[in-house]
């Protein structure tokens, strides 16, 4: 979801409409001020999210009461088991609560990587087809269909993964546990295909027509033009689509909470139950005592997630804009 504005049009229009502007009366000015103030809501929202998610997590840094149970550093440091081996465990409700976040981070990365490996090749290839081969009529069918896919509520995708896909995966791979990282990753792939597709397709279409014409005029075939000219020119945009897909996948909650099995195990296997950061917040926050160390830790996870996705999306957007500027198709 990006906001793009036709720059040339706005620049064109701005000075003229300003010079034409009437200095309206009192009501006119009030309305303008109101609109300008309301427009700040999105800035306020971003700041308030950071502030208030951070505020609830703050005792983790400042409260000595909380420090008896957990510290921020302790969330990343390994524990030692009886024989002195490093132990990474997320067991916040055990007798001695353990808040090591590695199992959750690895869980989130596992399902995200599965989703990307499945969704990126399909979505980028589909984008190539729609931008390079499909006629306008075909495009008018495919693009809305992909928007519809994006419009399916993630809880419905999660439900479908739980009831149907889990069975398929189990029959196909003979996995011992019905719900696992693979099932959750396949479900997530459904959710990120639309964003990877749209951003890639936008990028491919932003490649100027002259590039294609030049390649074809030099005697290359259509396929050579696509593979050696168009796709490389759009590569930053395609990369951005992957980055944005990653951001979407790592923050997705309902699909993974339903389909991943939710056991916080630290391993690289795909066929075992796994627990992501988002699913942990969704499942545990409803049951914790407000203001307890566990509550603070869950908000800290949320704050980390917010900052991570913010950075990911910021760079994703920047790559897209940078590419458009370079290709001279700022639109």
């Amino acid at each position: 979801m990006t906001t793009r504005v036709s720059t040339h049009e706005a620049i064109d229009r701005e000075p003229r409409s300003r010079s034409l502007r009437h200095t309206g009366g009192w009501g006119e000015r009030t309305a303008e001020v109101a609109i300008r103030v309301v427009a700040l809501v999105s800035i306020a929202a971003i700041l308030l999210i950071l502030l208030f998610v951070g505020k609830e997590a703050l005792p983790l840094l400042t409260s000595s009461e909380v420090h008896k149970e957990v510290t921020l550093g302790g969330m990343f440091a390994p524990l030692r088991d009886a024989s002195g081996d490093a132990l990474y465990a997320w067991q916040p409700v055990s007798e001695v609560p353990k808040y090591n976040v590695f199992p959750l981070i690895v869980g989130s990365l596992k399902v995200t990587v599965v989703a990307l490996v499945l969704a990126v090749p399909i979505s980028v290839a589909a984008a190539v087809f729609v931008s390079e081969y499909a006629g306008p009529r075909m495009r008018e069918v495919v693009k809305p269909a992909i928007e519809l896919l994006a419009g399916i509520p993630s809880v419905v995708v999660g439900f479908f993964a739980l009831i149907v896909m889990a069975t398929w995966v189990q029959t196909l791979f003979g996995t011992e546990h019905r719900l696992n990282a693979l099932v959750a990753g396949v479900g997530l792939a459904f959710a990120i295909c639309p964003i990877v597709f749209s951003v890639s397709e936008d990028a491919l279409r932003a490649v100027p027509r002259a590039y294609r014409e030049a390649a074809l005029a030099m005697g290359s075939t259509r396929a050579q033009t696509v593979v050696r000219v168009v796709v490389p020119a759009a590569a930053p945009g395609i990369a951005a689509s992957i980055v944005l897909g990653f951001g979407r996948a790592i923050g997705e909650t309902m699909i993974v909470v339903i389909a991943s099995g939710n056991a916080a195990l630290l391993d690289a296997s795909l066929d075992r139950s796994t627990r992501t950061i988002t699913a942990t917040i969704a499942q545990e926050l409803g049951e914790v005592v407000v203001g307890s160390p566990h509550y603070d830790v869950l908000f800290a996870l949320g704050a980390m997630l917010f900052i991570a996705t913010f950075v990911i999306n910021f760079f994703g957007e920047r790559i897209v804009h940078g590419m458009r500027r370079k290709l001279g198709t700022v639109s």
Partner: protein
Amino acid sequence: MTAVAGPAAVGARKLVGTTRRGDRALALLTAAAVGVILAMLAIIVVDVIAGGTRTLSWEFVTADPRDGMTAGGIFPAIFGTLVLTLLMTVAAVPAGVATAIYLTEYASMQSPLARLVRVCVANLAGVPSIVFGLFGLGFFISTVGRGIDQVVYGGQGVYGKPCLLWSSLTLAILTLPVVVVATEEAILAVPRELREASLALGATRLQTIARVVLPEALGGILTGTILAVSRGGGEVAPILFTGVAYYLPHLPTKLNDQFMNLGYHVYVLATQSPDVDRTKPLLYGTALVLLILTFLLNLIAIWIRSRSRKSSRASM
């Protein structure tokens, strides 16, 4: 997320005289990828429809749940979802439209503030929905709600708890970017000449916006609203801790009541049911109702948009 249609693909086709084997292979391969994505859509839709129609009945959508959620209907969940999204719309649409008007009509392109607004809108769209849930709890309930309770109700717990109001405001912030993007696109499509004509006739800038620009952009605003409702109606993570309840004996009547919700109903039935086989028909039925609501809204939005695009193309 739409680009202005370029004639590149069409033009390239005309320029190609020879079709070679590699060309055909690439075309088939990429077409197959489109097929896979369409199949993904079809498979979910067909499965939910096939599983859900058996459950779907007049009683199912109009009756209360019975026998510990294993029988009866889901009317309270439908009602709760509708009220929730209605309140959300009342908050999100005016704010989103005002933001879009500011960005297109008032702010200059170089304005750092406008650029910041743009960055924030784009980033707001990328914030994970579960973080909105945390925010709603930390800000609306713990801070604003408790604050109201302290000041107005002498410390009684009236608004400092999960309820309809805080859930809908949380969702309003989540769906704000949807409204902004759609409205902005629609306003930018309004021809400059219309504004100039209006201003030349002596209308003020506000009159021009209210009587010329916004009516022209109404289709886009409507599209944005519908997409926001569709998105908000299907979200579960942001309302988990801000007001939704699994079962309530009464429908919500006040802003500080809790409510039931279709998506949450699916979630709880799917994850916390002791007897999945008994609840499976209900689960499918609920998922189908939710899918019908969001799908219909999306289809209407796509239809309005393609119509308004066609008509604006025709008038140019």
